[in-house]
Structure formats: structure tokens, C-alpha cells
């Protein structure tokens, strides 16, 4: 057998069905007697609903039913809950306004659903939706975060008269102030983290199917975490016992966070199926996705860093405004707090940190986790600030980072913002990235760019993230309303093949392969003998799903535990068969052996014996070979690394081209290097997208002005270079694999490296600041402004 365990670039088991066009995505499914739902959504950012007249729609051809807010209220459907309670500075709770699945008297963002039309075809439903006559009294709206807390601003929710959801802080302000008082240098920076649309290429879709005969619901939905959706629907929104609801997330075409959350549409088609007595299917259009999928980022921050005369960081103070959108999405409140401000130490030894976050409601789509979720915002702030500090005090950008890195002898390292990093080697990843980038050849490359009329810039970012979400007790103490462990079940089949049931969900990450590799590593069998089942609450015992780069670290660790139990039970069976004591049995490479002898039993023989127990210790051991395990992590994991970017800027057009990306990450033990590299590539593309191309734009009145692929600039193949991706492994100290997580590193590390490179390119022209996305127009204007300023000087 070839080695297919840890470190093997096994080609993916799931690929064949996708390559043949035989994937099974929700929109591919057709249930007998199925109907189609179309949502009528608000075109206004903020309005009172004076009247809804759906009589014409109800009478339109093919229409089965039209539902409005009144109908769901009459049936007692619960509002969409928020999974994380944040406390204000004064200890009081955040404001949690109702988040109804269909508007109750008021709409609060463009795209807010007002009615659901159900018809026998999508065409009929669409035509009838246009006949739902809604009279709105339009109200003043807040489209931009910067306007949310201004005096006299329109109020999104009466419960939050100043539009603040919470005013939260972390760290020791007095300690930070004391450090600033004795600082030799203080560096300050204002920055914006641009609002993004996640844009998984598969739009969201859901089919509700109620069986009156069994009083049982099935929901097929594009979800990263079907058990969480079942939990929330059971307890909060649909109000049915969990055994009466099955949630299936089949093949899902990308998530990036946007498919974590419990959305109105999946609830409404499930409930609607009971109301109309037929399955109800809904599939989002892309334009609809822009105004109904949760967005990401959207911060405005002021940061200042105190340094001593030698360039050592003394303290950091950060004040951030975060946009939560019109309603609290499932994990929206946790992103700008515990997933953001706790990362503000970065890879640096920083004794004092104080951060405060004011999170505001606006008349925009809810904002929640998107690839990186808080950690890109922290890395961007810190790495822009560190670069500015280097320039301000005249220190090399690489050296200032080296000087301030947490040293390897300082681990475990307690940060000033709650986290304790277990391990890392930031000098090593920096050195590896520098070698890959060929730093020594830079001047030559810069001269070659100049010969073409281009300005070349070099940018660096050294970042850290917290993954493997999460130790339940810690998360609970911080306000999480759920546990964040993971579950795995290993079913050894009688002839020795293995079926793994995992509570994580794969929507591109390749778990069907990497989880099979974990089995290969532990049981010494080929991945061909392993099937991985995920995404179905009826088949899998439980799970919290896939997000925050947690699947391998938490779900993989649960699988390791379950496999240990299988091996241990097998030892007892083998001991019986080999007439030896259990303590003398070893298991290695798929074989049980009496230690120091040639007396062996293959794993398959032991499995067969477990199911055909003719010669079996039946008095002391049950037949069968199937084990489950739950794993709750002891700590977060802390991937980190160094991302280096070179850009060429065309000073005449402002066009920025990324010409080199050299990164070195430390994502812990690598199960499948091919998949790990692929995850880094995808994250890099999204990170470069944020830095140069992407931004969801609202006008001051809350109108979404770029809600399609014609207007929102998605990175395309020709916009990106090939990437040089390297890894330096320090194994996580507290999980059985040593894995840290790789899903988000690209999106976290690279945006500041790109912008630092753009600024580096433009500094000779006098440009010292640049915001994301660094579009040609923005860059060109900055160049012109700098020219004008120079002339004036």
C-alpha cells in the first residue's frame, strides 16, 4: 500500500462526481409535486409598510399561496436568533432587536423580505411576485457606517435610539495609557476595512418538505452546518422537536462563512411546505444574493501604537466602529469583538493593548463572518500600522517586525487581549517567505519595472489568526450560546472498510479525502476503503459544522479520538484471538501484533470477528466495531505566517498589478499538502480581491449600488498571478493531529501586504496612504493629489 496518511498529496476522492457533472447541489434536486417560492423584497432601505395587497398575486395563474409577515406572526414563527451575547463596557447586554423572517410592519434594508409567493413554477411565482402590491411610507435611512451614530441619525430599531448594538472593550486602558505616556514614538492611523460580499459561486437554495403523514420536516439547504440550523430551527424559529426535523446540506458550492447562518428563506420554505402541503423550493438569484446573503467586514478604525526609542512596541490602542447591518445575523456580534480585537497582538510581543468597539445598526444587509471574520480586520490594522511606524521612525520594515516578534522561547505566550498562543515560529516563516520572494533580487526587478514605466512596490505582512473554534467553556464565558466541540463516528464495516460520519461539512475543503487520510494514517488502510459522510442530521449523530478553519483541528481530532477507541476495542478482540493479554497487543500499520512476536492479526480479521463473533470474548465485550467521539478543544489554534507581495503600478492609469506573491504559513501538521496549498490559493485570491477590487457600496440613503457581477468586481483569472506558497510547520501542542487550520490564512495575511506594497510603490510620488480597494481611479487620484501638493509646496 502506498502511504496515504499525513503528508500525502492524495488526489481527491470527491472530484470524480464534480468532474462528471454529477454533483448533487440543492438546486439540482427536484421533489415530487414540488412548488417554487419567490420572495418579494423591499426596494427601500427603510420604510413603514402601510399596506400589503396580495389579492392579485393570489389569483395569478399557478399561484398556490402568498405569505406575509402577518401569516408567520399568526403561526408564531420565531425571529432569527443571534448566537453570541456581547456585553457593553458597563456590563449590560447588547441590544437584540427582533429579526423576523418576513417584515413586521417595517423594512430595514434593501432586500428585506416582505412576502413569499409560492407557485407551481418558478416563472409563475416570479410573475405573481410582481403583483404583490405593497404601499410603503419611506423613512430616512442610514446607508453608511460613518453616519450611524451621528446625532440626529435615523433610528433603525427603536430599542437602540443611538443605533448602537453594543459598546464593548477589551484590554487594560490604564496600562496602555501609561505606556503611551513614556513612549518615544507614537504612530497613528485611520483606516477602513471595506465591506465585502462573500459570493460563493453557488447561490443559496433551500427546499422544505413536510410530511403530514409522519408529521416530519425535511430541509435541504446550502449550509456549512446543518446541525446548527436544525438546532436553531427546533429551538427558536420553527419550534419543532429536533427528531421531527431533518436538515440535509448535500454538495454545497462554496460558503466562505456566508452559509453558516440561519436565514429566513430556509425557515420559510420549511414552514411553507406544511402550509401548502407540498415541497417548496427556493433558489437565490445572484442579484438577490447581494441583498440577502450576509456581508463581511465594514469597519472604521483609529489605531495608535507606542514605541520606545529602539522601535520596540510598547502599547496599542484601537477604537473601531463596526457595521452590523440592519439585524443581528447568527454570529454577527462575535465577529468585531472576540474574533477581531483578541487578535490585535498579532505575532508581536505587545505588553499593553486596549481596544474598544462600537457596533452599530445601519439600513444595510446584516454583516457576519466572511473568510477570516474579524481576523483580517485585525491583521490589516496592525500590519498597516507597523509599516507606518517603520517609515515614521526610519526603521526597516522587516527589522521592525523581527524586533517585535514573540520569540520561540516565549511560548506559551499570554497576550494582553485574552488569548494564549501555544506555539509558533514567526522568524522562520518570515525567512522562508523572504527566500521564496528573492528579496536580494528586488532592486533589479524594480529597475526592470521602472524601465517599463511602472512603479514597483514591495509589501510585507506578518500575521496570526485564531482557529479551531473553539474551547466551549471559554467561548461560553465570552458570550457564545452554543458549544463548539465536534463529533465523529467511525463505523468499521464487517469486511474491514470504514465509513466515517463527521459533524463538519465540506463545501470545497476536501474533507472526503483528508478525513479518509486520517483513517489511513491511524488504521493503515487505503483511502479507497474509507467513505466520509457529512451534511445530514439523520445520518450523523451531531456536529457544529465548518467555519473558522475548525474542521481538521476540531472535527479531525474527534475522528482521531473515535479511531483510538476502535483501535483499543480491536486490541481486546485481537488479544482474545491471539491468546495474549491486551497489554501485550500492539497496533501498527493495520496489524495487531503480540509485542516482540510474529503472532499477528490483520485489522480486517479483527473487524470481521467483531461482526461474526464465533470465537469472541462475548462475556466481556460486545460485538460490533463502531465508535463515536466528541472533541472539545483545549485552546484555539494559532496559524500564522508571512505574506510578501510585489506590485507594479502604472502611474498614468493607476492600475495596480500584483506581480509576485510569496507566502510562508504555519498551519501546523499538514494532512494533504495539495489541499493545503489550494486553500491558501483561494484565500489569497479573496484577500487580493479585498485589497484591489471588491467593495459592496451603499449610498447615503441605503441603496445598494453595485449588487451584481456587472458592478461588483470579482477577481478573475487574469487579475491574479500564480502564487508561491510555502509552509513551516510547528505542530499545535494541544490537539492529537498537531493541525492548526488553513482555510483563512490567505484572506487574512495578504490584504495588508498588497496595500503596503502599493504605498511602497507610490511613496516616491508623495503618496503615503491608500485604502482598500485600491482601484485604478483611487490610485490615480492619489497620485494626482500628491503631485498637486508637491507643486503647492
Amino acid at each position: 500500500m502506498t502511504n496515504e496518511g499525513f503528508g500525502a498529496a492524495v488526489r481527491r476522492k470527491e472530484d470524480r462526481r464534480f468532474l462528471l457533472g454529477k454533483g448533487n447541489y440543492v438546486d439540482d434536486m427536484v421533489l415530487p409535486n414540488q412548488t417554487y417560492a419567490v420572495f418579494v423584497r423591499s426596494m427601500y432601505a427603510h420604510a413603514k409598510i402601510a399596506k400589503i395587497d396580495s389579492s392579485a398575486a393570489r389569483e395569478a395563474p399557478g399561484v398556490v399561496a402568498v405569505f406575509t409577515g402577518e401569516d408567520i406572526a399568526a403561526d408564531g414563527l420565531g425571529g432569527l436568533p443571534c448566537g453570541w451575547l456581547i456585553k457593553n463596557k458597563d456590563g449590560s447586554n447588547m441590544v437584540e432587536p427582533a429579526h423576523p423572517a418576513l417584515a413586521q410592519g417595517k423594512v430595514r434594508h434593501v432586500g428585506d423580505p416582505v412576502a413569499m409567493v409560492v407557485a407551481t413554477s418558478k416563472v409563475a411565482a416570479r410573475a405573481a411576485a410582481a403583483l404583490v402590491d405593497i404601499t410603503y411610507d419611506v423613512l430616512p435611512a442610514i446607508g453608511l457606517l460613518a453616519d450611524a451614530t451621528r446625532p440626529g441619525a435615523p433610528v433603525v430599531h427603536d430599542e437602540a435610539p443611538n443605533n448602537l448594538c453594543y459598546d464593548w472593550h477589551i484590554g487594560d486602558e490604564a496600562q496602555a495609557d501609561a505606556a503611551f505616556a513614556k513612549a518615544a514614538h507614537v504612530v497613528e492611523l485611520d483606516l477602513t476595512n471595506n465591506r465585502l460580499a462573500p459570493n460563493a459561486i453557488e447561490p443559496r437554495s433551500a427546499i422544505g418538505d413536510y410530511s403530514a403523514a409522519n408529521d416530519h420536516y425535511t430541509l435541504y439547504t446550502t449550509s456549512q452546518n446543518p446541525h446548527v440550523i436544525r438546532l436553531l430551527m427546533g429551538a427558536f424559529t420553527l419550534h419543532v422537536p429536533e427528531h421531527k426535523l431533518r436538515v440535509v446540506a448535500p454538495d454545497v458550492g462554496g460558503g466562505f462563512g456566508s452559509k453558516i447562518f440561519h436565514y429566513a428563506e430556509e425557515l420559510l420554505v420549511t414552514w411553507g411546505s406544511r402550509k401548502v402541503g407540498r415541497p417548496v423550493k427556493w433558489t437565490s438569484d445572484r442579484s438577490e444574493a447581494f441583498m440577502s446573503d450576509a456581508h463581511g467586514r465594514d469597519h472604521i478604525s483609529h489605531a495608535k501604537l507606542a514605541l520606545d526609542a529602539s522601535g520596540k512596541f510598547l502599547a496599542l490602542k484601537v477604537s473601531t466602529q463596526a457595521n452590523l447591518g440592519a439585524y443581528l445575523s447568527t454570529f454577527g456580534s462575535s465577529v468585531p469583538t472576540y474574533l477581531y480585537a483578541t487578535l490585535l497582538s498579532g505575532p508581536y510581543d505587545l505588553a499593553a493593548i486596549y481596544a474598544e468597539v462600537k457596533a452599530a445598526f445601519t439600513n444595510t444587509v446584516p454583516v457576519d463572518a466572511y473568510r477570516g471574520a474579524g481576523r483580517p480586520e485585525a491583521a490589516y490594522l496592525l500590519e498597516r500600522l507597523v509599516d507606518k511606524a517603520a517609515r515614521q521612525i526610519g526603521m526597516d520594515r522587516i527589522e521592525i517586525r523581527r524586533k517585535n516578534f514573540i520569540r520561540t522561547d516565549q511560548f506559551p505566550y499570554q497576550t494582553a487581549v485574552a488569548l494564549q498562543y501555544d506555539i509558533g515560529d514567526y522568524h522562520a516563516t518570515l525567512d522562508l517567505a523572504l527566500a521564496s520572494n528573492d528579496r536580494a533580487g528586488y532592486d533589479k526587478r524594480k529597475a526592470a519595472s521602472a524601465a517599463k514605466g511602472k512603479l514597483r512596490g514591495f509589501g510585507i505582512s506578518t500575521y496570526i489568526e485564531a482557529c479551531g473554534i473553539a474551547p466551549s467553556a471559554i467561548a461560553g464565558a465570552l458570550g457564545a450560546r452554543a458549544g463548539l466541540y465536534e463529533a465523529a463516528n467511525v463505523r468499521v464495516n464487517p469486511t474491514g472498510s470504514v465509513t466515517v460520519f463527521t459533524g463538519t461539512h465540506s463545501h470545497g475543503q476536501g474533507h472526503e479525502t483528508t478525513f479518509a487520510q486520517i483513517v489511513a494514517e491511524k488504521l493503515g488502510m487505503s483511502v479507497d476503503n474509507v467513505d466520509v459522510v457529512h451534511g445530514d442530521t439523520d445520518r450523523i449523530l451531531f456536529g457544529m459544522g465548518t467555519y473558522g478553519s475548525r474542521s481538521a483541528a476540531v472535527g479531525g481530532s474527534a475522528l482521531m479520538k473515535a479511531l483510538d477507541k476502535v483501535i483499543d476495542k480491536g486490541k481486546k478482540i485481537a488479544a482474545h484471538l491471539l491468546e495474549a493479554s491486551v497489554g501485550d497487543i500492539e497496533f501498527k500499520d493495520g496489524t495487531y501484533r503480540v509485542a516482540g512476536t510474529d503472532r499477528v492479526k490483520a485489522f480486517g480479521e479483527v473487524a470481521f470477528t467483531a461482526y461474526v463473533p464465533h470465537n469472541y470474548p462475548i462475556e466481556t465485550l460486545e460485538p460490533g466495531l463502531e465508535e463515536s467521539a466528541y472533541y472539545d478543544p483545549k485552546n484555539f489554534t494559532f496559524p500564522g505566517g508571512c505574506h510578501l507581495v510585489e506590485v507594479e503600478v502604472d502611474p498614468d492609469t493607476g492600475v495596480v498589478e500584483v506581480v509576485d506573491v510569496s507566502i510562508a504559513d504555519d498551519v501546523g501538521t499538514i494532512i494533504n499538502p495539495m489541499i493545503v496549498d489550494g486553500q491558501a490559493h483561494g484565500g489569497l485570491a479573496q484577500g487580493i480581491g479585498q485589497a484591489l477590487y471588491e467593495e459592496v457600496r451603499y449610498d447615503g440613503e441605503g441603496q445598494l449600488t453595485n449588487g451584481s457581477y456587472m458592478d461588483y468586481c470579482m477577481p478573475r483569472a487574469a487579475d491574479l498571478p500564480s502564487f508561491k506558497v510555502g509552509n513551516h510547520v510547528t505542530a499545535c501542542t494541544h490537539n492529537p493531529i498537531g493541525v492548526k487550520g488553513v482555510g483563512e490564512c490567505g484572506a487574512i495575511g495578504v490584504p495588508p501586504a498588497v496595500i503596503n506594497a502599493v504605498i511602497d510603490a507610490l511613496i516616491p510620488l508623495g503618496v503615503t496612504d491608500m485604502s482598500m480597494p485600491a482601484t485604478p481611479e483611487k490610485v490615480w487620484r492619489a497620485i494626482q493629489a500628491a503631485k498637486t501638493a508637491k507643486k503647492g509646496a
Partner: protein
Amino acid sequence: MATIKLKVNRQAHTLECASTTLLVEALREHLRLTGTHVGCDTSQCGACTVHVDGKSVKSCTMLAVEADGAEITTIEGLAQGGELHPMQAAFREHHGLQCGFCTPGMIMSATDLCKRTPDPSEHEVRHWLEGNLCRCTGYHNIVKAVRAGAAGMRGGK
């Protein structure tokens, strides 16, 4: 309603469909060939790319009635005799897919490129694929896969 005749993946079909039915709807809903995907509503993402008379076309941009009499190949028709097409094999070998949603469109687009340009450079691949969006791979491995797939197609494998 219109009656149209299509040859899809070497098999003849006669369809009754509305004059407004898009080719992608005819394929997905009438013929249940769900390998062709819909990722947007503005002909930008390319997930719906199929071959119409041998050329790659975004099937969301063509009415089914316009395809009357045409020969169409979808992702389901690419592999023959249980063997992956060289482009499909190259996508697997080079990890050119993650969630799989853009993959059928990428592969149908790439095979058309390689018929026109049997040995495309990285630059040519990247520019040809401008009409196909992928959110998972960062295109890095797609580009590698397309060039390897081109080699496979040249070799007649």
C-alpha cells in the same frame, strides 16, 4: 410554446418549451442535465458554459429556441466510456477544483480554448478564462490544470 430539436451529448431530443426558456433551463429542467450550473444572472460567472456546435457558449445567454437544430455537449457528455476526458483528468490531478460548482463551466470553456489554441500559455489561459468565475481556487491550479489538460488533449489521451 415552441417545439425544438436538440442533439445533446450525442442523443436526439425534442422539447416543448416556452419561447422565453433559456438554454440552461432546457438543459437543467427539461433534460435534468444538472451538471451545467447557474451562478449569476448577468452572464458573468460562466458556470453554465456548454458547447453549442463545438463552441463554448454561456447557456444562460441563449434561448432554447435559438439552439433549435444545434448539437450540444454538456459536462455530462465529455467523458466517454467511463474514462475522464483529459481536461477532467487534469483538473483532478492538479487540484483545479474545490467546491465543484464552477468546474463544469471551467472545463467546457477550457476544452474549447485548447481546440483553438492547443498549447496555451499561462497568459492565454488566464485571459481566456476571464468569463469564468471561481471563488475557491484563486485560479492558480485551474491554470495549471488547463495547461496540463491541453497537453493531454494534444496527446490524444
